[in-house]
């Protein structure tokens, strides 16, 4: 029980640091929030340090992000249709 409370406090602190901190919020709203929130630990944003393996993703321009999003949607939808499409039958 005590461990759960501690983890919740950490989550709240992370959320406040990302949303209520103006510098981090501006950085996140450039379309990298989803990548950074799930892949990068919180202190990387606080200290401005990014792991090199994610800099390629974070450095994508808007057009490349659109292309990745569209290609991912297309490929993912095909995988889902082929594997679980029968569930949509009536």
């Amino acid at each position: 029980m005590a461990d759960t409370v501690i983890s919740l406090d950490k989550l709240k602190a992370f959320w406040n640091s990302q949303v209520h901190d103006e510098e981090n919020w501006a950085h996140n709203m450039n379309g990298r929030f989803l990548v950074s929130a799930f892949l990068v630990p919180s202190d990387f944003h606080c200290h401005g340090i990014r792991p090199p393996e994610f800099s390629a993703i974070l450095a994508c321009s808007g057009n490349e992000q659109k292309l990745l999003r569209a290609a991912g949607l297309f490929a993912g939808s095909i995988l889902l249709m082929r594997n679980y499409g029968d569930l949509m039958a009536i």
Partner: protein
Amino acid sequence: MAGLVPPVTTTIPADASKTKKADEKTDYMNLPCPIPFEEIHREALMSLKPETFEGLRFDFTKGLNQKFSLSHSVSMGPTEIPSQSAETIKIPTSHYEFGANYIDPNLMLIGRVLTDGRLNARVKWDLTDNLTVKANAQLTNEPHMSHGMFNFDYKGKDYRSQFQIGNGALFGASYFQSVTPHLSLGGEVFWAGQHRKSGIGYAGRYETDKMVATGQVASTGMVALSYVQKVSEKVSLASDFMYNYMSKDVTASVGYDYILRQCRLRGKIDSNGCTTAFLEERLNMGLNFILSAEVR
């Protein structure tokens, strides 16, 4: 006294299936005729590109005899106009369209006249079982905005070819060949004399009972991929991917198509966050109800 029937030697079913498989593998002289090159994406287009509209639309078709009918169409609503900025500009418009249709097994004539003076005409004439002539024209009051085009389609045993001639010195040709019972490959070329532009494109289509996958690449920068999963006779799931490597514009969409006894429901979502739904319901004989919605 009943005697024992001597065993009858029969061919082992495995040999017959192997022979049948060998015949199917090597029977390249009896490949099916592919669909026309311009229709390779038709399953995906039918599922993912319904005729959405905003406002009010009313269509009425009156058949005068078995071949000839008249149609009246009224529509009122905002129309999107092209703009230089990224912002979408819509202006309210309304128009009435009068149409005449003549449909014969070998000849089809369709004409539409709008209140703003535009005339659309389409002709499809089956000269022989294999040769079809198609023509379509759009005439307007505005100078240099009228277009016309002739298509000559030839259907071979396992191939399709088409030749196009349009105004403005527009010439085009396409060829589509069945390579295997499921795979068809082809290409197209065009030359626009007025704009001094030419282009070439290649396409492939793989079709089975359960799915259709198509791909098309053109020198104009277009890359178009589509995949349709035929879940059942009533249900299809479709996905398409359009990319222009010249303008770096890309769109992918995923959708569904339910064809039921009394209605047809289609919906899709695309990579730009636009969600579309389209419902056509047959309320009574000759009376259809249509709902269209698009959220961006």
